[in-house]
């Protein structure tokens, strides 16, 4: 059986290539049909903000890629509810919000964890 991997994405989409590069790991894993989870934590939850205007800061919009994760076989997408609330963000449309206790259990469930 394949080892599972949880990618924890902690950077805002405008703060450099980190958000993109975390997503690339997830998409590559999906392409190999590996069991992959994605958790947005801390400033990473800004990637889930509605109505982003990435073009205004001359960036590429990642949100379309996030909405398409299901097409790549990535169904386990989570967000830290505390991080969302602390930043005034609504419940995300394409991720399941989890409290701290559920996040502990989530991390425990995966064989390997990458935090970017």
């Amino acid at each position, binding site marked *: 059986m394949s080892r599972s991997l949880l990618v924890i994405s902690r950077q805002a989409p405008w703060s450099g290539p980190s958000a993109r590069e975390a997503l690339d*790991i997830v998409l590559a894993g999906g392409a*190999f049909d590996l069991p992959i989870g994605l958790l947005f934590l801390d400033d990473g939850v800004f990637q889930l903000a509605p109505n982003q205007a990435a073009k205004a800061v001359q960036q590429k919009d990642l949100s379309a890629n996030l909405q398409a994760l299901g097409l790549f076989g990535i169904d386990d997408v989570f967000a830290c509810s505390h991080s969302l609330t602390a930043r005034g963000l609504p419940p995300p449309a394409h991720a399941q919000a989890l409290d701290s206790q559920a996040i502990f259990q989530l991390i425990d469930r995966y064989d390997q964890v990458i*935090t970017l």
Partner: protein
Amino acid sequence: MKFAIALYSAAHAPSSRRALLFAQAALAGGHEIVRLFFYQDGVYSASNNIVAPQDEQDIARQWREFVSQHQLDGVVCIAAALRRGVLNAEEAARYQRSAVNLEAPWALSGLGQLHDAIQDADRLICFGGP
């Protein structure tokens, strides 16, 4: 134990040195390193063009020598490297750039190599940040 080691920081970051010390200790302890995978700013830790002051450690050179000496599988993520200007001769020719700063023992390859190493290893150990 079989380790896969991922590095996300440049040669001047303390975490690059920590990763090297960990890798050296792993081999010294009789463990195996299935692959080193340099991602994000970790691609700078593989650059050939780093010149360290004489009274400072040359971590990029130490990485090169370590990988060569133990004939390890040292992979630098190609997408992360291109974005940061870390090019081997083939990529420099492909994109018509004048500088080559990545050479053997490093190989440029894709994220599939990271996933492959994760599947192969007992433990994935990641180094990044300061």
